[in-house]
């Protein structure tokens, strides 16, 4: 695994969210709330369109965190959901994820994570702690 330096930025990575991904995530998570699949329903409750599960966004960011960790353990992972990820039909929405090393202590590295869609932050106060071997 790589050596982390406080303040260093980790290369960003983008993830694609579309309706197929929402259906797949609904099926494995058990969260079949129609706001994540049914446009008419989503609009009936005041949303612009179908939105992604917050936990899907967090799971994709989790993939990024796991990749940073490599064979080391992810010890903590947290986020606040501040804006919905709107997913129109037949559209690939890009989730852009990045990270910066906040601190290194107690055999672990703490990261500040950013996640945005079209320049709008969808998570805030996102952090991860990875064990350092």
């Amino acid at each position: 695994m790589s050596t982390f330096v406080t303040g260093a930025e980790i290369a960003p990575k983008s993830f694609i969210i579309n309706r197929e991904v929402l259906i797949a995530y609904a099926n494995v998570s058990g969260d079949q709330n129609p706001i994540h699949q049914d446009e008419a329903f989503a609009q009936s409750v005041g949303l612009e369109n179908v939105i992604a599960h917050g936990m899907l966004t967090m799971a994709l960011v989790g993939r990024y965190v796991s990749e940073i960790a490599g064979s080391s353990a992810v010890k903590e992972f947290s986020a606040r959901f501040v804006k919905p990820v709107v997913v129109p039909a037949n559209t690939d929405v890009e989730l852009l994820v990045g990270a910066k090393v906040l601190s290194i202590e107690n055999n672990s590295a703490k990261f500040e994570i950013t996640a945005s869609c079209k320049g709008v932050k969808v998570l805030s106060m996102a952090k991860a702690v990875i064990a350092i071997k």
Partner: protein
Amino acid sequence: MLNPDIVGRTFTGVNTFTVTQESIIEFCAAIGEQDFTIAPPTYTIKISLAESQVFLKESGLNWDRVVHGDQKFEIYQPIVGGDLLLCSSTVESARVVAGNEIVTVRADLHRGSEHVASSWATLVARA
């Protein structure tokens, strides 16, 4: 309205949750993760949210209006296929802000006597 007496109570899952290797592979496939050897960091959300949904609904929370506010995971031991996990959930706080009901639930996951993970979910039932 959520019954405020629920704060501080702990609800222990009736059933043990079996982490099958297939369920890890399915979860990974849905999010595009290629490492199936351990459960991804957010895998346990399906256990903890399913448990919370039951007692929060029974305690009066309008689940149809719920959105996810915050989520935190602390992972003490890797979770792998074949693990049998018991989830106990404690309502840490509940408050009303501008008509929105905000509740935070901690879920502790044990494999036998071993505490493998805890997670905190803050859920908001919109006014």
